[in-house]
């Protein structure tokens, strides 16, 4: 059960978040909790995840409660919306900012609908009823603070870098050393005459607000989702922090703002299996794989109850289009001891492997 309201300028930021998440996937979860309203999105091949959490103080008013089911169990709002339904509502954000005086979002307990009402100038009221699918939100577990490399930069600089890369070039490589950072086109195979332009840009350490490079590395990830994050960061005027390690480990892009917190977690291309790695990865074709993100479902039930256990699996580096066998595991409050599964997926135990950790609370 969700009920919240925002002003015109807040709608603009909210809309920007949705636009940014639309770069990740065609589906969006609306996940309210006592921490605030989280918008989550995961792409179909599980190589990108985005979450924007708006704290309760972001809104003019914010009410959230769990609903009680018939059999006495409490359930969260498990609301999955199609981007196609919700994106058009938040189009033309500049005009929304000017015209909208108040925007109310609430859910109807009887029907699977989210109602978005825009109270505009001149007494115009627009009501959108968006049907949603019952679906537990997925979230990614990623301990970004354990990453060796942390860079904080103004979004404008990143935007200047990204504009170098044409949209046809999907992947971008970030190469770092303690002396400099280079953003360049990813060169997977040997380039030939018909290949696109190779571009690179060097950024010196002094351009970053925070610069910590623990390990020299080169990571390759998809440009598209980074662009999504940049769209959003420009709206919040807050710097972006990048947390990453070695190739294969995900890259986290985050914005920490007083009123909201955004995290985009992108899988990076893993190295060739020439390193000491698991037998499983050797069975795969020689092409570099994206290591998929460890994803779990958010838990059912109130937080102040037992310590919430998240169940997670480290997914083995696999072919990009392999099917994910992600099951919706949930612990029920009155089930007693939490269920914990550790799936042996034959992957290498990386130092500080974040994904096999139990998480006490939601990200």
């Amino acid at each position, binding site marked *: 059960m969700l009920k919240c309201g925002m002003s015109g300028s807040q709608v603009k930021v909210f809309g920007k978040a949705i636009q940014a998440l639309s770069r990740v996937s065609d589906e969006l979860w609306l996940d309210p909790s006592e921490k605030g309203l989280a918008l989550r999105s995961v792409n179909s091949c599980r190589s990108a995840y985005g979450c924007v959490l708006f704290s309760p103080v972001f809104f003019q008013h914010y009410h959230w409660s769990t609903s009680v089911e018939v059999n006495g169990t409490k359930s969260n709002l498990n609301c999955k919306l199609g981007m196609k339904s919700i994106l058009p509502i938040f189009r033309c954000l500049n005009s929304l900012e000017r015209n909208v005086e108040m925007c109310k979002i609430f859910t109807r307990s009887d029907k699977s609908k989210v109602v978005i009402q825009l109270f505009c100038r001149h007494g115009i009221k627009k009501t959108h009823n968006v049907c949603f699918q019952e679906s537990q939100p997925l979230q990614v577990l990623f301990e970004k603070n354990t990453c060796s490399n942390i860079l904080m930069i103004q979004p404008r600089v990143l935007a200047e870098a990204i504009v170098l890369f*044409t949209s046809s070039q999907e992947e971008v490589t970030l190469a770092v050393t303690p002396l400099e950072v280079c953003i360049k086109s990813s060169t997977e195979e040997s*380039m030939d*005459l018909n290949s696109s*332009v*190779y571009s690179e840009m*060097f950024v*010196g350490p002094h351009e970053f607000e925070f610069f910590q490079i623990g390990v020299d590395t080169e990571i390759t990830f998809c440009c598209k989702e980074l662009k999504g994050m940049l769209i959003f960061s420009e709206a919040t005027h807050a710097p972006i922090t990048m947390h990453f390690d070695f190739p294969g480990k995900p890259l986290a892009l985050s914005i920490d703002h007083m009123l909201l917190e955004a995290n985009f977690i992108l899988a990076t291309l893993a190295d060739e299996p020439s390193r000491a790695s698991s037998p499983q990865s050797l069975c795969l074709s020689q092409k570099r794989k994206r290591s998929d993100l460890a994803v779990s479902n958010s838990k059912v039930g109130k937080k102040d109850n037992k310590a919430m256990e998240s169940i997670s699996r480290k997914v083995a580096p696999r072919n990009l289009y392999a099917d994910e066998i992600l099951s919706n595991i949930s612990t029920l409050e009155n089930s007693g001891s939490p269920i914990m599964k550790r799936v042996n997926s034959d992957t290498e135990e990386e130092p500080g492997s974040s994904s096999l950790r139990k998480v006490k609370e939601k990200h």
Partner: protein
Amino acid sequence: MKFRAKIADAACLNHFTRVSCMVAKLARTCTLRIRPHTLNFILADSAAGGGVSMWCELPQENFFSEFQMEGVSEENNEIYVELTAENLSRALKTAQNARALKVKLTNKHFPCLTVSIELVSVSSSSRMVTHDIPVKVIPRKLWKNLQEPAVPDSDVSIYMPVLKTMKSVVEKMKNISNQLIIEANLNGDLNLKIESELVSVTTHFKDLGNPPSASENESEDRSPEQMAEVQVDIRKFLQFLAGQQVNPTRGICNVVSHKMVHFDLLHEDVSLQYFIPAMS
């Protein structure tokens, strides 16, 4: 073969970027010819291109503060390379706030035109950006197809009206038919005609003025009212108009009756010639 050049002035850089964008709109792949004093962007006519050809020439000294080239050989001091025009225009567009831009021919696994840009960031420190644009070196035996086209003996030569007006008119005409008739006379009249079964639309431009004719015969034999006409594919004409972001310093349209239309534009110091053949 060697080529290195540098642009240090912001206005020159913007102008060069605009020229490159214009070329990118007119041709997908084109030839870049480098000579000691000029640069040319060339699109030779081909069946694939529908017979359209383009010749663009810039005096190198007006753009580059440094310019060094060494052609294929002493006698043939020229370089001909083929590239995707959009790659160059995109690379140049990233040099908006550049302190300096360098272009050179390099060989990294295969020939490239490397554009190195020194960007100035807010903290007034420099940031280096490099783009390697793949190019194909054109062998000498193919050079004969890429020479400057002869200005045709036109029946009528007329100054062009404001291109933006033409473009907005022609864009609407495109919906009626694919065949556009361009006709002009020596009285300063230019008409654009389009016809379908149900409707025919003509736009009349008057008092455009005619440039002084090169040959005496032209003005004698021809009555000023007589129109010379050519029927062209409207899409090719639109593509040409789409490439012109600003109105040229001077624009001349030469009509060769039933054969072709030739546009001769001058954008400050850059000359552009565009040939559209008549539809068969």
